[in-house]
């Protein structure tokens, strides 16, 4: 590629004008204007549900705008489906990965673009060539299910490149990556930018936006608020543009940690279902009353398994789990809940809610043996409804009533309901997995507040989060998890996300704030 710098006079790569998109009950986009210059990295920011993904899906032909026009390279276009967009040189890496687990990397990449180089050896060569020139190395023959998150992301980008896209949409690509992986990604992006690619980049992480973007457009409640030069604004200013008000912070002020041990995990081990591979190995952990213990780790290093083993959803291979003095190791999930554990699962749709059931039925889930949801073997419908109303009030769940199905609520409100439910019945321990993942700032602030309040009352909290700011802000102690082991302790008072990130990837401690644990 010869011309690598964006020329101001060249036609913009993409111009969206007057885009409006309505869903039943929601206007996702309303008169959105966006201009992306060729060769730049253009960031798109906005709260949850602001309409970013919708806008991008429209640009990618997955959804049709109700109003508005799209221009690509100066020519007006109409995309009826993604194939049209692909033809026009637009590619998209989705917020939720769009990969078929049971197909190989190569199959995933060539799918839909078989006409280019077939599906056999030739395609393989092309993929390998692409991978080499961009640094996105991954074995084309391996099944996607065997890949980690970062590799999957590489596959996603390869998919787009393979189709010859010149304008690449990245919808929250960094959400699942640790800082080091983010850096790697950015390096790749810059190199590709040199080669003439244009990027549309969505992220909630404003530091990243400022680090990579050449310009940034902010969307609020479905409409564009304005475009800024990221080098010229602070993250705070950006955030306030997004929200239209001041930012909350996860910080906890004074420590409320007591001596009373609530949760004690001893030498916990878990073996993968299919074989003898250890997924958890020798986990020792203590959480005290009034303490928040945070677990940091790259996704897939055993955090999910740890939580599910403590909850009794998986059978530990060895080791013990004690709540107070009581040994829970042989109990089932329900008994553990009854013993006083509240559990905010990492995926509210899959694990937290019965989506088609009304809110009050969801209130019963996990409490089906206890007041106020049940009396003995019988359900107490009136009690459940009454308590649901309480949660709706106390946790500011925005809903027209408690009889609507859970699916009708937005993600943030669903999460508030789940947190409210898990904090009912006076638990002594709360296990919270990504409690504010994908939740907008308002809801996030409320959930943080509630966790802090409960902690002040003496609740012990085990917090798992990929959001390192949240983790550092909320925790009293941080443990780093790597390959099924707890490998380091970090002090939230002094540790930075970068330090934590390097410990999480196993690059070793780079700061005094992270102390490696003996044993490995």
């Amino acid at each position, binding site marked *: 590629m010869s011309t690598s710098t964006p020329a101001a006079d060249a036609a913009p790569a993409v111009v969206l004008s007057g885009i409006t998109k309505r869903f039943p009950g929601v206007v996702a986009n309303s008169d959105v204007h966006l201009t992306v210059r060729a060769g730049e990295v253009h960031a798109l920011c906005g709260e949850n549900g602001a309409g970013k993904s919708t806008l991008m899906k429209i640009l990618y032909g*997955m959804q049709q705008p109700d109003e508005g026009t799209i221009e690509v390279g100066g020519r007006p276009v109409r995309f009826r489906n*993604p194939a049209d967009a692909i033809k026009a040189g637009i590619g998209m890496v989705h917020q939720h990965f769009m990969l078929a687990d049971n197909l190989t990397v190569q199959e995933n990449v060539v*799918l839909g673009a*078989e006409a280019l180089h077939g599906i056999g050896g030739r395609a393989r060569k092309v993929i390998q060539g692409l991978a080499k020139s961009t640094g996105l190395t991954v074995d084309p023959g391996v099944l996607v299910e065997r890949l980690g998150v970062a590799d999957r992301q590489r596959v996603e980008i390869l998919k787009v490149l393979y189709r010859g896209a010149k304008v690449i949409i990245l919808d929250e690509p960094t959400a699942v990556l640790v800082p080091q992986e983010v850096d790697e990604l950015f390096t790749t992006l810059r190199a590709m930018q040199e080669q003439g690619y244009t990027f549309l980049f969505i992220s909630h992480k404003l530091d990243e936006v400022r680090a990579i973007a050449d310009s940034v457009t902010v969307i609020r409640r479905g409409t564009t608020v304005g475009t800024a030069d990221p080098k010229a604004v602070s993250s705070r200013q950006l955030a306030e543009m997004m929200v239209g008000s001041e930012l909350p912070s996860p910080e906890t002020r004074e420590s409320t940690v007591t001596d009373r041990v609530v949760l004690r995990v001893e030498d916990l081990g878990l073996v993968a279902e299919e074989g003898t591979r250890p997924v958890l190995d020798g986990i020792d952990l203590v959480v005290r009353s009034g303490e928040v213990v945070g677990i940091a780790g790259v*996704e897939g290093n055993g955090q*999910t398994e740890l939580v599910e083993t403590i909850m009794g959803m998986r059978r530990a291979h060895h080791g013990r789990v004690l709540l107070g003095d009581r040994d829970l190791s042989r109990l089932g999930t329900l008994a553990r809940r009854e013993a006083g554990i509240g559990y905010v699962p990492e995926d509210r749709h*899959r694990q937290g809610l019965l989506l088609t059931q009304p809110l009050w039925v969801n209130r019963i889930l996990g409490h089906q043996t206890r007041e106020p949801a049940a009396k003995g073997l019988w359900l107490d419908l009136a009690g459940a409804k009454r308590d649901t109303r309480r949660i709706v009030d106390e946790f500011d769940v925005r809903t027209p009533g408690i009889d609507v199905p859970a699916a009708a609520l937005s*993600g943030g409100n669903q999460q508030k309901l789940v947190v409210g439910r898990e904090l009912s019945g006076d638990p002594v321990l709360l296990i919270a997995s990504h409690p504010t993942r994908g939740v907008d700032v308002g809801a996030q602030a409320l959930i943080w507040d509630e966790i802090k309040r409960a902690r002040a009352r003496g609740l012990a909290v085990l917090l798992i989060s990929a959001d390192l700011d949240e983790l550092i802000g909320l925790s009293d102690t941080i443990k780093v998890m790597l390959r099924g082991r707890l490998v380091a302790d970090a002090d939230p008072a002094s540790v930075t996300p970068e330090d934590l990130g390097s410990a999480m990837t196993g690059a070793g401690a780079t700061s005094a704030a992270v102390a490696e644990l003996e044993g490995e």
Partner: protein
Amino acid sequence: MSTSLMNPSEAPSTVPPPRKARRVPGWLVGVLGVAGAVVLLSTTSYLTDVPQLTSTGTIQTAVRLALPILLAALGGLWAERAGVVNIGLEGMMIMGTWGAAWAGYQWGPWAALLAAAAFGALGGLLHAIATVSFGVNHIVSGVAINLLGAGLTKYLSTLIFFPVSHNPRESPAVPKFDTYSAPGLSEWLGELEAQQRVGLSDVAGILRGLVTGVSPLTMLAIALVVGSYLVLWRTRFGLRLRSCGENPVAAESLGVHVYRHKYLAVIASGALAGIGGAALVLNPGQPGYLEGQTNGRGFIGLAAMIFGNWRPGGLLGGAALFGYADGLQLRSGGKTFLALVYGAVLLLAVIVVWQLVRRRWFAAAGGIVAAVALYAVYYSLDEVPSELTTYAPHLVTLIVLAVASQRLRAPAADGVVYRRG
């Protein structure tokens, strides 16, 4: 939900670096499996002195009985690889039998085949409309199609066959295909088989069964198995089709026309099930269409497909197993069945040794108990009551599934209703 993988808790943990995929290629598994089965059978046949286990006739019977099941299973494969569960195979098969008879008695076996495919495809189309366009639960639609298929064919038979055959439940006789044998080879194998040499004669018997008296239908079915493999795994169309069964949202986002592929797959599925019906009608022993003729073979086909792990080679194995067990019990009954029990004991012994090597004491103990129990059965009985042997294929399927089913893996989006947008 916004930042996670599609299925966080099912995401593989990358804890130790992903094991280097030491995958044994599918064809090798197949070859080893077949070889193992032959060894097991010839050993059993030798030790129990029951040559029928590997005789030419038994194998031929097995092939004939397996054929309709195999085709139904293939039909299931096509639909389920595209993510549509097809419990309506039975109904589509019934429609196929009717179509085959209707065209067959007028224009001969090839026309029968075509008509059967068309009638089956019609059932498939109905299933596709319901499940793909209307998003109806796949099982519901399948059950309805089974009812419809049965009702429709009965109704049509009274209208159309009755005036000709004077029997509302039967079509006029349908001409059959000629059968073919490999000259020379067949005789040579026959001589080998007759010599009753351990192992060699067994293999000869099995091979001879496969090359003697072969109907074009059998060749077609085998071609369809191979063809299905090639189409589904070696072409872009197949890749797209399978992607609809694994992750339709992703497929759609890459420009794959998911609805169209699902439609095509389910229609093909119906056509294959229909051909399965034709295989029944065109079987030399059959007069033509006969009410109740399919007798649950569509369901068995579905089972064979699941048994075969949603793979063409696997379902071939499943259908063969069922056909073999059924053939054996039909041809020789209780005594041979006992020989099979003996074979099962041998198989269990091998498994026990293997588990002992792997230090799986519990599994090994279970195996020993089962083996001893089976041996006791073998030892104490002269002949298994015929009431029980009739369903030997069902029992065998159940047992094999219990042993092997944990390795099975359905397409990820199988049975999931997909809606565009």
